[in-house]
């Protein structure tokens, strides 16, 4: 049953204006959050299994390209962040903003466009990512037409949001709204700057930045997507829903103000901590480290503020599952924001980077902070929207325990696995050789941890399914209030008594959100600018290496395939200057080697070995066999098979356009080279297929695998014999 409006026969009280909150948009975002959430987490469980199942069932992927780890992980992360958490942000913002402003959302039409536009983006994301349309930039994989759509929908949200704030009936802007405003501007800036790409065709583009610069922009974006999508909006939600559920004001409102400004100011600088020991110039790394460590202060200020709000209410925490979820969420926020700065310390990072330790850290944040806060808000809001009580408190408690336990399994297993594998990869024999020379040996050692992780994930997902049932039953027993009535004193208008002074005061109040918007923008731009400008303008930051040459057309196509298949999800291309790495992979990576890499492909996780110096390590035939069935060359490998690379013909229709686009981005292909590009490509392909024939592999030269082999064999070879290594560790 659905009540359209809870209209009231009694006329509005004197001097009070009557209006209705839009609950429909709130509910719809809630449904979308839950639906996409279950799907994203299910995909998460599947990819967790893919990291150990191939050991037992080599044909796990069924030979389907869209079921490989590289494809699914992009869908999982996009789904979890933008669909699960994203829809929750909108649900919470649409609910709390209206109440905090005592006003309906500014425009119902914009609310509808926002809702359907966002779902459309997510659906397009799933389809295009499954088809291999990706830019490869983490959390920004979507191709340019979808990037434009995201921008439009975000602007729609922004207009609707600011319209509501500007027409509010409450004088003060509650601190939650500040966090929302910070989110609004920063996500817009991050998205636009990081998505600067030159289209080659309707679903393919190249990042306008290359190598080191691309890496810096990407991780400035990546880190701040965590900050301004997974953190600031949720802090806003915390500052609204926690006092509401606990029925007491936030512990210190002053602290929340300090929390807000120092957090947005500091966060924006910390991106380079994702690039420690890489080819990023040292000064930029140091800035990232310093700011990351300072970030503990505001983050913990926020956590303490949240927890102390519950002082004197701990009895209630024991009995109220909503508060339980919130307490664990806030605690996880504290843990994740303590751990983050620790990972930014160089000696910790040297061990933890590229290992399972990082996903463990990330999942404390997403499963704990975002997930549990989301569940708390859903358990609070759905009964309210349906004007009823929660169907079952004991099911909610069950969800809480199974979710917490699942999270513990997940993260502890990955901490152990990360530290174990990290240490093994650094281990030397007394005679100075690597103890685990074969990367795969370390993978085998941590396999049991991956099984435990998958079990933990399944438990967490089970908890969610229980929640879906509980909320569905709740909705069924209640009746939905699509438009909820409220009353508030009308806004001052100039024609009122104290006409002039009142009018001016009113104008100033109205101006405040705009000032806030402008200030927040300035604050977040400072950090980005200070890091970008020197890196983009001072040449000495990226010393050129004369032997580094642009990719041949065939290698470029191979690189496109590497991006399409998401190989960078498991492989890094960045050798750090440690003896354990130079011994294992070869000469450490130099900034000058990446100047033609649009986009950069350094990766962030080594599920497989680094590939930056793979060129020339094996014969073509090894790569052919390995790509067809990794188990044939590397027994026990968990890498997916890529049989379609052998049957698919290489699509060269865009080769010409790619060369032209690259030249426009500054890659020095001679003028007119685009006209010979396809011929050049075919000649090189023929050479490779001839060489394969010598190893008794007969394959036409027009297959995708040929291009991929060409690319792999080129990797890291430009500077061979150029320099001698100077090792720092």
């Amino acid at each position, binding site marked *: 049953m659905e009540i359209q409006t809870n209209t009231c026969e009694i006329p509005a009280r004197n001097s009070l204006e009557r209006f209705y909150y839009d609950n429909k948009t709130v509910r719809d975002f809630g449904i979308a959050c839950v639906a996409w959430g279950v799907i994203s987490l299910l995909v998460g469980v599947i990819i967790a299994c893919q990291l150990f199942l191939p050991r037992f069932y080599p044909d796990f992927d069924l030979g389907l390209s869209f079921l490989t780890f590289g494809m699914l992980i992009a869908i999982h992360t996009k789904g979890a962040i933008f669909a699960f958490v994203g829809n929750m942000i909108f649900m919470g913002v649409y609910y709390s903003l209206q109440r905090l402003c005592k006003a309906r959302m500014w425009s119902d039409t914009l609310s509808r466009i926002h809702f359907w536009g966002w779902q459309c983006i997510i659906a397009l994301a799933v389809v295009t990512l499954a088809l291999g349309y990706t830019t490869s930039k983490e959390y920004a994989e979507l191709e340019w037409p979808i990037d434009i759509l995201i921008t439009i929908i975000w602007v729609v949200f922004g207009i609707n949001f600011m319209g509501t704030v500007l027409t509010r009936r409450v004088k003060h802007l509650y601190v939650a709204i500040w966090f929302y405003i910070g989110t609004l501007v920063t996500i817009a800036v991050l998205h636009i700057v990081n998505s600067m790409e030159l289209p080659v065709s309707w679903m393919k583009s190249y990042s306008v930045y290359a190598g080191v610069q691309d890496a810096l922009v990407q991780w400035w974006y990546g880190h701040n997507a965590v900050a301004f999508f997974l953190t600031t909006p949720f802090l806003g939600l915390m500052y609204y829903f926690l*006092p509401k559920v606990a029925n007491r004001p936030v512990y210190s409102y002053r602290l929340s*103000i300090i929390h807000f400004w120092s957090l947005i100011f500091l966060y924006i600088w910390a991106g380079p901590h994702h690039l420690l020991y890489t080819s990023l110039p040292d000064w930029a790394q140091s800035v990232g480290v310093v700011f990351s460590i300072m970030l503990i202060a505001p983050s913990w200020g926020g956590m303490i503020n949240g927890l102390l709000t519950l002082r004197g209410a701990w009895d209630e925490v024991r009995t109220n599952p909503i508060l339980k979820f919130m307490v664990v969420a806030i605690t996880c926020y504290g843990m994740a924001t303590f751990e983050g700065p620790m990972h930014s310390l160089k000696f910790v990072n040297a061990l933890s980077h590229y290992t399972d330790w990082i996903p463990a850290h990330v999942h404390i944040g997403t499963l704990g902070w975002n997930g549990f806060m989301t569940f708390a808000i859903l358990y609070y809001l759905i009964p309210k929207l349906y004007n009823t009580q929660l169907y079952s408190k004991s099911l909610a408690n069950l969800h809480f325990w199974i979710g917490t336990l699942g999270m513990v399994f997940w993260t502890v297993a990955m901490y152990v696995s990360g530290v174990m594998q990290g240490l093994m990869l650094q281990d030397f024999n007394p005679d100075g050789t690597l103890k685990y020379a074969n990367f795969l040996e370390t993978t085998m050692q941590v396999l049991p941890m991956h099984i435990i992780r998958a079990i933990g994930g399944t438990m967490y997902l089970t908890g969610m399914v229980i929640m879906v049932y509980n909320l569905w039953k709740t909705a069924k027993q209640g009746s939905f209030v699509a438009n909820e009535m*409220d009353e508030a004193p009308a806004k001052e208008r100039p024609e009122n008594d104290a006409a002039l002074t009142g009018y001016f005061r009113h104008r100033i109040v109205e101006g405040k959100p705009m000032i806030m918007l402008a200030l927040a923008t300035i604050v977040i731009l400072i950090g980005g600018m200070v890091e970008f400008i020197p890196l983009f303008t001072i040449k000495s930051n990226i010393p050129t290496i004369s032997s580094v040459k642009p990719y041949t057309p065939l290698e470029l196509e191979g690189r496109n395939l590497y991006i399409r298949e998401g190989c960078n999800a498991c492989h890094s291309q960045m050798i750090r200057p440690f003896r354990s790495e130079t011994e294992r992979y070869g000469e450490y990576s130099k900034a000058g080697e990446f100047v033609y890499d649009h986009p950069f492909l350094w990766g962030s996780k080594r599920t497989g070995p680094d590939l930056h110096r793979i060129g020339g390590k094996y014969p073509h035939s090894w790569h052919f066999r390995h790509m067809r069935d990794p188990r044939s060359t590397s027994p026990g490998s968990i890498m997916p098979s890529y049989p379609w690379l052998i049957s698919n013909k290489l699509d060269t229709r865009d080769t010409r356009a790619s060369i032209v686009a690259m030249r426009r981005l500054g890659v020095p292909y001679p003028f007119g080279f685009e006209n010979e590009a396809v011929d050049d490509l075919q000649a090189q392909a023929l050479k490779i297929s001839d060489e394969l024939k010598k190893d008794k592999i007969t394959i036409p030269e027009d297959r995708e695998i040929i291009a991929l082999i060409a690319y792999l064999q080129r990797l890291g070879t430009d500077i061979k014999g150029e320099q001698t290594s100077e090792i720092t560790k």
Partner: protein
Amino acid sequence: MFKDFIKQDTGMQIYPILSLLVFIGFFVLIIAMAYAKKKSEIDEASRIPLDENDSILTFNKE
């Protein structure tokens, strides 16, 4: 510890120190701002989420 981060000789070592100073300045400013606000104003603002007239809903069902 900070010395270790900053001692690299790239001509850019001024950056971390500068950014630290910028931040300290900013931090002092916002603390001053937060404490300049009147207590009554702070209390009023902090109660906004609790101000809702939740009774209207139930009252309407009668």
